[in-house]
């Protein structure tokens, strides 16, 4: 924290007395300063607000007004004392006379002295500027905190916290600098809210907001005067009239998933009605194209196509196709071209009408991922399955669905993948014609499950940590974890 030299509130005794009296003001105390001049009287009343800031207000009483209404006798004296607003005995009163040669001023000064014990000073100039300087130079009586959010435990949970900007005793001109991270803040952007505290309860002092691009920022806060903090470092910062409750209403309970380099595996079911296969491939294309345009690192993309098992002896069971593996988005899109051109796989009979090679697809992905992870660091992998059919069981069971010819057991394969580090599951599942989707789709869409007909690409990508969620806004800056 840096501090500019604060000019002395005044070299004369009045200035020092005023500064001392203001500094000694309690939360409920009141200081009255009366200036008596040749043309009238001005009263300054100073008190502290809920933030401990010394605030003053003033009201003048020109002699011409006083005499016009009350003459210059007893009525005028009482009216003058009422206008002076002298506090109850015990509170401090300071009287300054800036026109000692004026008879009217001296008479008024006399009436005030008779009414209350007060320190009386002579001054050569009006004291309004002096009072303002004293208030500006008053050191903070309560510390000022910037409202931030910070991670709390695992799972991206967030909590509100305060970052100290200015401690008690800080004076105007003090600056402090801190590094924060801004997330998408929604309609109002990121709010730099300054609070003081009454016990543990924060009291909102000021809010300034700016809609800034997500990322780290170095923010400088300057204490302009008690009660006023000026920020620099966030472009477009403007005063924000929201209340504390308004701000709290926008606070999410979780940090949005971090985006970053990832490996997207699109596994598409290519059996069934042509129109559905076409739609599934289209969704895969949309997702890959969407991620290509995201500001985050474009993921490596694998494209896997799987169909139905053949149970006809004369037709060879078509294996799962790995069209691309950890390739560029462009290569995957080219692979989709080929799949779209081919259309639904219908050759051969009898393909199973209700189940597909989901378990073979899982086996293929598990084997490939296992090999990748043994060669390099695990990284993040997202398996996005697009289809609707159920898997074949590993052995004959009561479902009536014929067992996988390869004897793959989808349960154990799924469990294996779920335990691999950094693997997330998303699914785009269309409603099967013969009832609700098989329970495997809950696992395949564990992190994000979307419907084929109502796909929110942004939401799906965000749920899988491939994009920043549009719906989750963080209204306050996040404390940078590296700080």
């Amino acid at each position, binding site marked *: 924290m840096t501090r500019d030299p604060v000019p002395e509130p005044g070299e004369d005794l009045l200035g020092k007395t005023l500064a001392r009296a203001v500094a000694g003001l309690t939360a409920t105390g009141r200081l009255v300063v009366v200036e008596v001049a040749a043309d009238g009287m001005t009263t300054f009343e100073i008190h502290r607000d809920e933030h401990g800031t010394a605030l003053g207000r003033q009201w003048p009483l020109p002699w011409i007004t006083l005499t016009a209404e009350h003459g210059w006798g007893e009525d005028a004296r009482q009216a003058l004392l009422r206008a002076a607003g002298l506090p109850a005995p015990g509170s401090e009163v300071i009287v300054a006379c800036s026109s000692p040669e004026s008879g009217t001023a001296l008479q008024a000064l006399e009436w005030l002295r008779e009414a209350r014990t007060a320190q009386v000073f002579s001054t050569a100039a009006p004291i309004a500027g002096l009072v303002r300087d004293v208030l500006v130079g008053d050191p903070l009586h309560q510390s000022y905190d910037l409202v931030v959010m910070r991670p709390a435990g695992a799972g991206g949970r967030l909590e509100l916290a305060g970052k100290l900007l200015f401690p008690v005793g800080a004076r105007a001109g003090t600056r402090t600098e801190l590094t924060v991270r801004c997330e998408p803040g929604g309609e109002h952007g990121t709010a730099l809210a300054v609070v003081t505290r009454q016990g543990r309860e924060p009291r909102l002092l000021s809010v300034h907001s700016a809609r800034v691009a997500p990322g780290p920022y170095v923010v400088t806060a300057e204490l302009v005067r008690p009660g006023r903090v000026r920020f620099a470092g966030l472009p477009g910062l403007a005063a924000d009239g929201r209340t504390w409750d308004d701000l709290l209403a926008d606070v999410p309970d979780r940090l949005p998933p971090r985006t970053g380099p990832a490996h997207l595996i699109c596994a598409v079911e290519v059996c069934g009605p042509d129109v559905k296969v076409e739609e599934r491939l289209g969704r895969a294309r949309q997702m890959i194209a969407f991620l290509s345009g995201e500001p985050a690192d474009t993921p490596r993309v694998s494209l896997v196509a799987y169909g139905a098992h053949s*149970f006809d*002896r004369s037709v060879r069971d078509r294996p799962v196709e790995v069209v691309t593996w950890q390739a560029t988005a462009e290569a995957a899109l080219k692979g989709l071209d080929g799949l779209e051109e081919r259309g639904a796989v219908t050759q051969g009979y009898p393909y199973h*009408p209700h189940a597909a090679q989901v378990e073979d697809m899982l086996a293929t992905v598990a084997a490939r991922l296992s090999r990748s992870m043994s060669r390099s660091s695990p990284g993040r992998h997202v398996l996005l399955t697009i289809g609707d059919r159920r898997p074949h069981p590993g052995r*004959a069971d009561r479902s009536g669905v*014929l067992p996988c010819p390869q004897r793959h057991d989808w349960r154990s394969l799924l469990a294996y993948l779920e335990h691999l580090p950094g693997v997330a599951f998303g699914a785009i599942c269309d409603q099967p014609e013969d009832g609700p989707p098989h329970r495997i789709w809950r696992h395949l869409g564990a992190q994000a499950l979307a419907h084929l007909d109502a796909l929110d690409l942004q939401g799906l990508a965000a749920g899988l940590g491939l994009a920043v969620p549009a719906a989750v806004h963080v209204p306050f800056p996040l404390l940078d974890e590296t700080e």
Partner: protein
Amino acid sequence: MQPDPKPGRPAHDIAMWGAPGSGKTTLLAALDIALMRKDDDWRIVGSDPASSEFLIERTNALSTGKVFPEASQGLEHYHWTLYGPGERHRRRWWRRPGKPEPFEVGVGMIDAPGGLFSAGPRRLDYGPDVLDDLRERMLNDLVKSLGIVFLFDPIREFERGDAFDHLHPPLKRLTERMRDLGRLTGGRLPHHVAVCVTKFDDPRVLETAEKMHLLASEPDDPYGFPRVSHDDARDLFRQLCDLSANGNADMVLNALGRYFHPDRVRFFVTSSIGFYVHPQTKAFDWHDYQNLLPEDDDLRIRGPIHPINVVEPMLWLGRRLAAEKESPR
């Protein structure tokens, strides 16, 4: 509707009886195939052109088309004759043992859609006269028959639970008719009854039998198919009754035991299509034995059929009837 069969058909008929969809037609088609797979000289022949045609169609559908024979939609009355090599007569004091007489037994089936006797909402598109006539024919069949093949479909019972509804009304009427004819013996119906618990190939039935430790393979079975012996079949029937959709299946068992002589009732656990056999291993595989494949809204047969316990009930009945013929009550 066919006229009554020619008078030359065998007298000791076997009547097929069971709820609609319980597999009567499939069992008959499977019987034809199973008989042809047997080494000995068994065959089933239609007693009239319509019955022959019916059997040819259904058997072809099952063996070649790999589809289930169409469920009965019309009101048909069929008769076949089951021919076999026969058995050498036991030596009697009044005659010497001679050449075995060919075994011959008539098999009759009223091929009618379900609901013929049920008390529930009538869904048949036939007038009351036609239905009355059909009921009468079916009762006549049962009255004239000495043996009954009663089919109990545990899967249908699990899903719909209507076996008792299809057994109870005709059983009551049959008893009444037989009493009027003075043919009850000891207050019970005189028929021999082969109770066939069907769909043994369904995992729900097979697994139930496995859990009850009722499965065994016959030593000379090249495929090693699991089977339930007729001694254990009643226990399996009882266990499957507990899975009935409406909980009435136990009454089926009780009714069979009370209206017929218990020593004339035998249980068989059957499968018309049998288990799938992989062409390479040519053996039963617990991991992959289902011989059904869903196709659209229907089921298709996946591989060659290997009927299980389809011939045995017929032969058992045939022998019991032949024995009765030899030693009339």
